[in-house]
């Protein structure tokens, strides 16, 4: 079985992320793909660069997942995040959550992503026509509270 949490420079194998959470009691499995999209706000994205503080990112993802397994009663959570240069349509992140019941699986998925975006040391530099910006930085018009985190794209 694959590791539950991983950082990779290769294309993410979503089936492997899902396989890491499967078990006989899990009737509901959510697989979330965060994919590079062509446009954010009014900017036309050309490509993204992701960077991670790998050991701390893996430690933080594990801690968040442990919390959420307790909080939501889900069976297992796994996540692989890609780093390096990503093009439109590439998956930046795949999260899988397995649970006996679907409501808990969906809630844990939402919470995992929200907490990852808050506290896991992974950075995204968006390259667009006319410039580049670190997402979430003070210079980023979509970051720093300019819209609520739960509305942010993946």
């Amino acid at each position, binding site marked *: 079985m694959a590791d539950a949490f991983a950082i990779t420079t290769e294309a993410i194998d979503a089936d492997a992320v899902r396989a890491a959470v499967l078990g006989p009691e899990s009737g509901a499995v959510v697989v979330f793909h965060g994919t590079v999209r062509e446009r954010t706000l009014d900017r036309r994205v050309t490509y993204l660069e992701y960077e991670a503080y790998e050991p*701390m990112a893996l430690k933080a993802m594990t801690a968040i997942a442990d919390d959420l397994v307790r909080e939501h009663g889900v069976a297992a959570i796994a996540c692989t995040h890609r780093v390096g240069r990503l093009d439109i349509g590439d998956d930046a992140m795949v999260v899988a959550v397995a649970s006996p019941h679907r409501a808990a699986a969906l809630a844990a998925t939402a919470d995992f992503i929200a907490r990852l975006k808050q506290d*896991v*040391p*992974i950075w995204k530099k968006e390259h667009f026509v006319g410039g580049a910006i670190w997402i979430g*930085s003070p210079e980023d018009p979509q970051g720093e509270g300019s819209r609520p985190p739960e509305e942010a794209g993946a």
Partner: protein
Amino acid sequence: MEVEIRYFAAAREAAGIEGETVAVGDDSDVAALLTTLCRRHPDLVGPAASMRIAVDEDFADTDTPLHAGAVVALIPPVGGG
């Protein structure tokens, strides 16, 4: 004593390096280290205001004490997913 610094994302670009070893006083805390780092890399002064600091892979406060060999990372606002 010496501590290991890791710069990421906007912090890496401002410092111009990925990491370095820095000598600090034996009773230094995170705040004292940041003052030292901003003196070495003036371009860090602006970005530093929005950064968090991790010591040995856990988020730390400005008054967290350092120890010899501590790995200190400058964490600009994150944006994974």
